[in-house]
């Protein structure tokens, strides 16, 4: 506490912080930044179903790539050429926004990345990815929620809580820290009177439902603010199609742009399990990637001047086989990509210790071998954006992961 109180540019908030002395050092970088008016935001997009990293950011310069990925390999030539990022990698042409951000130094790729999970079950893989635990199990809280819970109680970020987008709360942001839920809706709204009465009943009889309903009502009011044209918010389907992805990002950006809005959000997009007719530069995967690209676009537009302090990270439970399967798709694999975007990202870079694609270089002779740990990327973002220490990250946020070092300098 004493050390903190001597930090220059101390805000009143800091003084209100209680019981945080043990962790005090963890927050120094953030407070040091208070001087430059930074107001960092972090958006986590979970791509459920296992994203084919080799069709998202293709190693077009690797001599073995085209042979393995066959008809769906990205290429710099042809009718729909991939968009070159550097001399070796090119991004799927369905992602022009990401390519533009990359060129502007506001997007980056971590390639050949994976969590610590090495089996190929979606549901266990998603559990590990979202819980941040070393292995699958009965996880009930997510690493992003524990990160929020690790911030000082009076902190602006902790106070605003997290934002969960979609009809159900993604595991990654479930837990003790408060979470606001929101999804695009189009149902007639009951009057406040009924809502107040139900809340009153829940407060007496069912605090869990009371908390959930209160958050739902709050989120609805914020997102449906009067500047909003109601028609644009009609649901266009679940979060497994391009329109739904774009729309959910639009609403989330609106909530997060508010001065008292949440600084941390989680979205889950479904549909990446491309076993059959995956497509390459066009087709099923490209359509989904176009939706993800649209989400980046909506966040950039909707966050306005907050964009410069924003980091978005898109993660998936594991990658897919390097070689296409018998049905012009890919089966469950290992290494894949992590996509980073946002004004806060030190972009224009592909961060990869490229393992190569020769049979002996593939993981179990079938998958892109993982050379970066997804947790390292996430830790780096949490450290740079919110000043969480390696100790807190390695113990509380990602338990038993002290050996996985935060990836440094992801944030400009």
């Amino acid at each position, binding site marked *: 506490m004493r050390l903190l109180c001597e930090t220059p540019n101390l805000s009143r908030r800091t003084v209100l912080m209680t019981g945080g002395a043990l962790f005090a050092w963890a927050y120094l970088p953030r407070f040091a930044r208070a001087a430059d008016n930074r107001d960092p935001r972090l958006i986590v997009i979970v791509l*459920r179903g296992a994203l084919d990293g080799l069709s998202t950011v293709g190693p077009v310069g690797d001599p073995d790539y085209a042979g393995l990925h066959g008809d769906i390999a990205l290429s710099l030539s042809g009718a729909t050429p991939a968009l070159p990022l550097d001399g070796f990698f090119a991004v799927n042409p369905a992602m022009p926004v990401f390519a533009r951000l990359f060129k502007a130094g506001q997007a980056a790729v971590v390639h050949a990345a994976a969590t610590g999970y090495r*089996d*190929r*079950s*979606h*549901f*266990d893989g998603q559990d590990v990815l979202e819980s941040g635990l070393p292995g*699958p199990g009965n996880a*009930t809280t997510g690493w992003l929620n524990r990160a929020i819970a690790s911030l000082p109680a009076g902190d602006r970020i902790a106070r605003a809580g997290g934002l*969960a987008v*979609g*009809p*159900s*709360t993604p595991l990654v942001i*479930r837990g003790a820290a408060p979470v*606001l*839920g*929101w*999804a695009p*809706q*189009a*149902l*007639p*709204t*009951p009057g406040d*009177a*009924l*809502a107040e*009465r*139900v809340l*009153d*009943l*829940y407060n*007496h*009889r*069912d605090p*869990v*439902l009371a908390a*959930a*309903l*209160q*958050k*739902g*009502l*709050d*989120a609805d009011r914020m997102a449906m603010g009067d500047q909003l044209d109601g028609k644009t918010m009609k*649901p266009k389907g*679940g979060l*497994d199609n391009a329109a739904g992805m774009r729309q959910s990002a639009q609403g989330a950006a609106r909530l997060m742009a508010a001065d008292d809005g949440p600084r941390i959000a989680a979205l889950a997009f*479904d*549909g990446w*399990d491309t*076993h*059959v007719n995956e497509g390459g530069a066009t087709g099923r995967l490209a359509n989904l990637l176009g939706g993800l690209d649209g989400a980046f676009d909506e966040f950039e537009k909707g966050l306005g001047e907050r964009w410069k302090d924003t980091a978005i990270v898109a993660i998936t439970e594991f990658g897919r086989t390097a070689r296409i*399967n*018998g*049905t012009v*798709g890919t*089966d*469950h694999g290992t290494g894949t990509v992590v996509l980073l975007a946002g004004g806060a990202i030190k972009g224009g870079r592909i961060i990869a210790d490229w393992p190569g694609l020769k049979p002996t270089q593939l993981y179990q002779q079938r998958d892109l071998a993982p050379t970066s740990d997804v947790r390292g990327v996430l830790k780096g973002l949490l450290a740079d954006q919110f000043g969480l220490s390696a100790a807190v990250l390695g113990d509380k946020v990602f338990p038993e992961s002290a050996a996985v070092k935060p990836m440094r300098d992801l944030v400009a």
Partner: protein
Amino acid sequence: MAAPVSNSLAPDPALVALNRFGLGAKPDSDLGKIAKDARNYLKAELKQQDIALVSVDERTNAGLLDSTAAIEASMAAAMERKTARDEKAAAAAMQPAAMDKPADPAPSKADANASPNAKAKPAVQPVEADIYRAEAQARFDKALGADAGFVERLVGFWSNHFCVSVAKGQIVRASAGAFEREAIRPFVLGRFADMLLAVEHHPAMLFYLDNQQSIGPDSRAGKRRGRGLNENLAREIMELHTLGVGSGYSQTDVTSFAGMLTGWTMAGREGRLGEPGTFVFNANAHQPGQAVLLGKTYPDGGMGQAEAALNDIAGQPATAQHIATKLARHFIADDPPPAAVARLARVFAKTDGDLRALAVTLIDMPETWSTPLAKLRSPFDYVMALRRAIAASAGNEPQRTLHWLMALGQPLWEPPGPNGFPDSTDAWASAEGMKTRLDIAWQAARQANDIGNPNQMLASLIGPSVSDETRAAISRAESKQQGLALLLMAPEFQRR
């Protein structure tokens, strides 16, 4: 003995029977009578002849198609759509040439007029959507008409366990309802292995998990066309349908099983392999030779090879444990008592997967009657309970109910992945979910015609164990509609 008890002790047996096991009370349910003999009330439902089946003799269901007819209709519609697209493309290609002849002074204006007309063309509902709605209506009617609804809950449980998703494509949209009627309903009080075999043979499942495209690399078709395995179905059978994840099978087992399942496919539109839309075994695509699965060698036996493996897997202890855990989680609690899981697993093993015996075991075990009613109803169970409570349903059905389910995050036969919809309170008690329940309760209460006294509805739907707070909130409501909406939102109505 079964006098209503305070909710601080064991729950009211009538609410256990109707809510934990069933789909909720109806206005004419006699809670007092049910409470006196709740176990036999549930067992009586199990004994009704053909209780799990959707009768297509009934007037309202006469239009339901079997999966073969449904898939054939979808294939024909797909051809028609393709022809229409081709014709449109051809017409578009012709247009510039046609417009050259009369030297049109303002072609851009003509274009501007043409495009809104093209958009205004009446949209023809695809036949698959019609079939889906008819099947949805039949599913809802069955749930609304059931007495306690225990059997319909079992249908929902197994349909979610062996789920397909209509988001996969029009073939599944057309056949998802028929799949449930053909592969799930006949077996919910039968043998697990029989259901497993019916499910994995069904075109909807083979299509959903991509097996119709999986080809043995060494089969004739594989050699000729250079195509190969797709492991999706093999993996999900072991991980989700039977043994459960982490139960000891390896990647080698998955690959081997995928090979055994090659050739399990659906006959295509041209009918080369059999009647279009039916299951066929295509020997030309089957990976020849013996195969090893979970340490056991299966000789080359064509379709019988994978059938033998499925029968073996169905009887594995890991399968018994997996099914027992899921059933206990569904019917008792998110963290079910280990003794209850163990008992269900023992019954599964001892009876060779007799699902009627498992249902009776659930009724007989003390844990189902003593555990507090704490699970949040899933969206489907909630919407059905709501519609059962408000007997008369005006409005645009089944679209209204389908829309509600979509808004609540549980669109019918459209789970996010092959593991189905979640089965935990955490997943459904979300901020957004509860807000949407409030919207729906309000909408339903406003649309209900002829609402009785909400206090009397409370007495007949929830009964004497209701909390003082709920009773007071409803009696103080400012309108009948508001009182009914409060009842539909009460913890006693949300939890089961």
